[in-house]
């Protein structure tokens, strides 16, 4: 549990006191700040990490007849989102000793029906093959989705995926409560996620059709996956100390690693991998993971 600081509490209370609680300037700032942090241009803040994953596959228009490659380890959330769109999950086997998706793992699972590949950054550890997977996807004309719902603050995440999903759930690096984000390198796909976040409502088409200046059209079946301003205010305030929180996680992970190694329970990934991670847990050889506590 991360105790909030005075400036963080104040940011949320000021937002509530102002009375504007729905999508507004704080959300826009949060989107800009996180896109900048990931090194991408586009981001849409949403109501949860689950919503972020659902929107990613809706944006990609995966559906019946499509396949999406999901790694065997850590891919459960992405797989559930894929199934919600009616597409089929194809599980890619991963190395038990290093359970992150590689280019070879993904390539072995591709078929002519593959529409996307998901690379998961498990337990806050960046998947080293993300850039190679993007190259593979570009060669095949399919999309790469980064499931970074457990990896905000890890080095290099978000740069490879057409779409990248983040979560700000209570036990993650940016503990807002319930919230998430879809970001990415592809303006059109992030734009579509943004549209579906709020009921696929648009003013322009309807305006032209009706000659009205302030009504709207609905151009698809959307959802209410909006974040609200108080949560955006908290996320923005917490973001200022994300580096500090990640550094503390790395310190705690190194200590935990030493402890587990001494007890002969050797975590799979050591200090070299921890140095690039925003670790939530250390995966162990038996398939379980030891939580990193702050």
């Amino acid at each position: 549990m991360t105790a909030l600081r005075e400036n963080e509490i104040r940011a949320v209370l000021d937002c509530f006191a102002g009375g504007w609680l729905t999508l507004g300037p704080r959300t826009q700032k949060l989107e800009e700040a996180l896109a900048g942090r990931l090194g991408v241009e586009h981001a849409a803040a949403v109501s949860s990490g689950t919503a972020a994953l659902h929107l990613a596959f809706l944006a990609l228009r995966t559906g019946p007849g499509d396949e999406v490659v999901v790694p065997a380890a850590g891919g459960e959330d992405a797989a559930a989102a894929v199934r919600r769109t009616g597409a089929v999950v194809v599980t890619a086997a991963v190395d038990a000793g290093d359970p992150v998706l590689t280019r070879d793992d993904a390539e072995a699972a591709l078929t002519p029906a593959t529409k996307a590949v998901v690379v998961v950054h498990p337990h806050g550890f960046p998947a080293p093959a993300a850039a190679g997977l993007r190259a593979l996807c570009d060669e095949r004309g399919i999309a790469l989705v980064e499931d970074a719902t457990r990896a905000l603050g890890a080095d290099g995440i978000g740069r490879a995926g057409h779409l990248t999903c983040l979560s700000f759930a209570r036990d993650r690096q940016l503990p807002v409560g319930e919230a998430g984000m879809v970001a990415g390198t592809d303006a059109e796909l992030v734009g579509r996620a943004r549209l579906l976040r709020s009921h696929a409502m648009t003013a322009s088409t309807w305006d032209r059709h009706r000659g009205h200046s302030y009504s709207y059209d609905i151009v698809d079946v959307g959802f209410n996956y909006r974040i609200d301003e108080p949560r955006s205010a908290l996320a923005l305030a917490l973001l200022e100390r994300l580096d500090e929180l990640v550094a503390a996680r790395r310190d705690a992970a190194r200590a935990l690693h030493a402890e587990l190694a001494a007890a002969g329970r050797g975590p799979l990934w050591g200090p070299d991998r921890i140095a690039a991670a925003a670790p939530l847990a250390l995966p162990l050889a038996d398939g379980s993971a030891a939580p990193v506590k702050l």
Partner: protein
Amino acid sequence: MPATGTSPSVPLFDLRVEPEDLAAVERVLRSGRLEAGEEAEAFEREFAERLGVRHAVLVSSCTAALQLAYLTAGVGPGDEVIVPSYTFAATAASVYACGGRPVFADVAGPHDLGLDPADVEARITPRTKAVCAVHFGGYPAAVDELRTLCDAHGLAFLEDSAHAPLTPPHGLSAAYSFFSNKVLSAGEGGLLATGDDAVAAAAREHRERLGHRLDDVRAAWVRSRLRRIDADVAARRALTHRYRELLADVEGVSVPYTDAAVDTSACYVMPVLVDDPARQVPVREALRDRHGVQTSLLYPPVHRFTAYVERLGELSLPRTEDAAARELTVPLFPHMSHADQDRVVAALRTELAA
């Protein structure tokens, strides 16, 4: 004084924040436990008690609650749900979210913007699984007739009670909204209420699976505001009665529902219908530009949106289209002053006489 569209002198809605609301949020923030927990559970208990219903399942939005209502009524691929078109699109969109298909029925007429039970009955097919009524503006729909109709055909009766936070479910379940501008506001939030143990248990499972939880920060806020809901609704009703008196002799406009119905309504909004649809947009613009009065249009009919025309073709719902072409929603919120109300009525009188 000329006013701009961005900062109207009389806003459509204004959220008044009380110190106890902020204190409730602050307590949760200082506890460090922001996720759904004690506050969410306490709100569920208190809201259920207020409605007099067994179960309340707090979720992230009314759209999420509608999805749970349809899922727990067994709506799936191939199933139809009869809904009004004179509503926010979520009533229909959430049917698609479950794999089903919305079937639109017409409203009763300009005097009652709720579903017409006779038109609902005419649209029942072997594929119909449920009927979802909307309590437009907080005014109860024809629940007794609709419930009887559903019972006779073996259909689930559901309610989109987004506008009616004090109206308990009359059928299997009802979905409530705590969106920012609603009678009971959480910013973003919703709830499914039901008297059915199995529906409640299934709704809670779907909530976890679909990521539809509502955190304790918002729960504490909306819980604090729930304590004032009776006073808020009483103020809304008094203002609505006053609007009706003031508007009675204004030419060119009518007000739906009856004086008696006001006292059964949460009075979420104040709809008026201009006689001449050609005046709807000009009057709205004049209210904004010349009088600083913000208005809204509830609702553009869902069946006319591009996404629905693409899926269902061109449909005709004459009474819905007539109401939508003539409706103007004028400002209403519990702490609205009589002076502001007089200003809205004077503006309408001036512009409709022009």
